[in-house]
């Protein structure tokens, strides 16, 4: 009776798993990659998932067998079903040590190669010429994003436009707390840290609007530190760039300092970048914001209204 209960629980669980899988991965962002980086990670995840499912099936099967077959009050238990002094068996112990070692090796190889691949710009598909990566400096401050395009000499706040099919080389840094840039549909995250610069390559293969966010907790406004990524054709992108170059104001240091203030801000765009006067990735730049806004950081900001203000973007 008890073991039946036990069993039915696992059946329910297993069907739950199946249900989720059968309903497909559409809409589950990590499992629905929109670029080569996310794709690589997706492949690795699915590859590992097969091993894990295999392990789970084996262990669950053994487990179910044991608790059904060897429960004390099973009708017609045989005398030979009980061996209280059984204490080991070298052969079988070697087997269940070696097989996991093999699995670990098989998991390690693609992990390591993928790791090294991710350090480089994604390779172009089908022998197309490699495109020079587009460099974007992504800087965070409590609780907003600055995206500087040094080549184009423009800067956006809280939204991002990228050309599709071209690698993007993000230069990540932070003006204050540690944060992370994460666009699940395009690939995994990396940290932004003041006084340092980390590099993250991403690329979109499909046009579309993707969700991006800071995924590393940094205080009260954390939930609102999101942005939309607009992936578009090269020409649409260029058009957007020249629009900004022509129509948006310059980003003066005064304006920038104002934007840096801890708090929430709307989206915005400028026809110059803040890199001209400060790069927070350097040791000179790392205390820029804290020095200016120490008092503000020291207040509790109480952003009760974050929910309403979420409608930015």
């Amino acid at each position, binding site marked *: 009776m008890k*073991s039946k*209960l036990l069993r039915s629980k696992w059946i329910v669980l297993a069907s739950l798993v199946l249900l989720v899988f059968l309903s497909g991965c559409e*809409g589950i962002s*990590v499992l629905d990659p929109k670029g080569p980086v996310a794709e690589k990670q997706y492949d*690795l*995840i699915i590859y*590992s*998932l097969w091993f*894990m499912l295999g392990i*789970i099936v084996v*262990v*669950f099967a053994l*487990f179910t067998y*044991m*608790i059904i077959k*060897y429960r*004390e009050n099973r009708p017609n238990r045989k005398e030979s079903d009980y*061996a209280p*002094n*059984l*204490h*080991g*068996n070298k052969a079988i*112990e070697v087997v*269940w*040590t070696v097989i*996991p070692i093999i699995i*670990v090796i098989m*998991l390690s190889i693609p*992990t*390591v190669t*993928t*790791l*090294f691949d991710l*350090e480089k710009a994604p390779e172009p598909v089908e022998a197309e010429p490699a495109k020079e990566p587009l460099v974007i400096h992504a800087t965070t401050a409590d609780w907003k994003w600055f995206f500087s395009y040094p080549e184009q000499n423009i800067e956006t706040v809280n939204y991002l436009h990228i050309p599709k099919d071209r690698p993007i080389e993000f230069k990540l840094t932070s003006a*204050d*707390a*540690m944060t*992370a840039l*994460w666009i*699940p549909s395009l690939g*995994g*995250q*990396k*940290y932004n*840290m*003041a*006084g340092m610069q980390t590099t993250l390559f991403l690329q979109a293969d499909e046009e579309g609007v993707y*969700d991006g966010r800071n*995924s590393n*907790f*940094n205080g*009260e*406004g*954390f939930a609102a530190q999101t942005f939309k990524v607009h992936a578009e054709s090269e020409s649409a992108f260029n058009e957007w760039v020249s629009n900004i170059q022509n129509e948006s104001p310059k980003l003066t240091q005064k304006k920038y300092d104002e934007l840096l203030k801890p708090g929430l801000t709307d989206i915005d765009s400028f026809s110059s970048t803040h890199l001209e006067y400060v790069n927070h990735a350097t040791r000179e730049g*790392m*205390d820029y914001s804290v020095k200016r806004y120490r008092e503000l950081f*020291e207040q509790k900001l109480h952003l*009760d209204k974050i929910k309403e203000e*979420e409608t930015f973007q």
Partner: protein
Amino acid sequence: MNIKALLVDGDPLIYGAMVSIGLVTVAILFLLTYFKKWGWLWREWLTTVDHKKIGIMYILSALVMLFRGGMDAMMMRVQLAFPDLGFLDSQHYNEIFTTHGTIMIIFMAMPFLIGLMNIIVPLQIGARDFAFPYLNALSFWAFFMGAMLFNISFVIGGSPDAGWTSYTPLSGAAMSPGPGQNFYLMGLQLSGIGTLATGINLMVTILKMRAPGMKLFHMPIFTWSTLVTSFIIVFAFPILTIALALLTIDRIFGSQFFTLTGEGLPMMWANLFWMWGHPEVYIVILPAFGIFSEVIATFAKKRLFGYSAMVWSMIIIALLSFLVWVHHFFTMGAGAFVNSVFSVSTMLIAVPTGVKIFNWLATLYKSKIEFSVAMLWALAFIPSFILGGVTGVMLGMAAADFQFHNSYFLIAHFHYVLIAGTVFACFAGLVYWYPKMFGHKMNERIGKWAFWFFVIGFHVCFFPQYFLGLDGMPRRLFITNVVEWLPLNVISTVGAFGMGIGFAIFVYNVYYSYRHSERETTGDSWNGNGRTLEWATTTPVPYYNFATVPHVDEIDPYVRMKKEGKTTFDEPNVKPIHMPSYTGRPFIMMAFLGLASFGLVFEWIWLAIVGLIGGIIFMILRTYDYDEGYYVSVEEIKRTERKARGL
């Protein structure tokens, strides 16, 4: 400073908490006075150095902390399932997950396990007490004062709100001013020192106080797990001590370790934190493994399969645990080479853990499984823990971790290992050793209700979170602002309430059993299936534990003793037993250090100095203390044993 500014104000939740804490305190004080129990409390508990009583105090505190951490969890779950209710704002939510994580790991899981070790380890090796009973009391009170200090942050000064990992620079003075973060630092520091002392104490106890003839490879597996865990504690906790101290000095005395100014290096905190933090999670899982081994062997009525493989796998896990810390920040950008090294070392831990899983399964093979409540918890552990373990390996694959990190996939992973591993083990161990501790069993029927509610609730709560993580839901998010995430969050909350009901039933069972369970008459409570020495002594356990200690030259010595009709009361050979005297000093000394820490929290240096001087005076008193304890006479031992054994 005025008192009003100290009290956290402005929120009905907090007022509610203050009022209820106030009421409970008054009620306790009243009851103690009314029943004239103050003397009893002081003589029997506050001054005790008896490992069994200290263990019980650990476990009681841990249960209270589980309640506190659980209430935090419930509040988070309500907020996440009903974002429109506006139940919690961002600031409160941040405080709550911070206290939830910290309390659950530092003030619930560890003390619960240490409590069980306190009670059981000396009994399993045939010792009269710990090697250093006085130090043991000190450790307990250090933990207790640390926990209290951390908990009062809820009513005065404000709770810490930078996560249990307390990453800098967010948790530094510039961005988290005020006492909240100091509560975290001082609370952990105080209890951490207690834990370190316990680790040393347990190591010496196990290495030097075993029954005659008992070699290391004759020790019960729970004792082994304790030894290995203590080894990790001794080497990991000093790292935490220093990390906390450096951040404290940063915050209070203006040094520049983890600051943005003065060329500080905030990410060094993460490095130090995880050098301790990763070993820490194995500190809370290895004893759990030990408990499961004992419970499974007892209720399968069979010897543990692969004893030495079980021991060696724990040792290997312990060594590897110091070589994987970077997997908590693969996304820091340390480069492909660094990540590869730590990726592989992380995945290697799956091998010794797998060995353990298969040995448990093999122990069930050709056994006679009795589905008692303790066994149910142990059995539910195996399939549930696997799900957490294999997802841990997926996290260990650094390239994939870029997508899992900081997401609910990670949250699901560690609740699967922490709850299905540690919490199930705490319940299994408590139910299993309950008769030894309190002289009666917990009711089995009610226990099963608690079990099913908790286990089913657990899976319903955390399984969906894997998918939330894959859908990009980050952790520490106070509001589920993406519609697609909502349904799974609601399911998850339903499961959490299932666990809540399970826990409530469990607590009710404590009361019910106290009133209605049969009192134990034999020391070997589980139908005579005990295998190790703790079952050989009588129940309730006499304060000196064993009248005579048998010679041990094998694993599971009690099995043979029973066959040969031997007991731990070998009347002709009873000798006087040396016992330590009770003393109130550990309590008072730690109260002083608690005061000092409290002073530091509010940066009242004078108070800190007063407390510190008090502490130092007690240390000096201790070094001049030549109290050698006392001897229990042979007559008294004989009288006690005869009575307990009905001779």
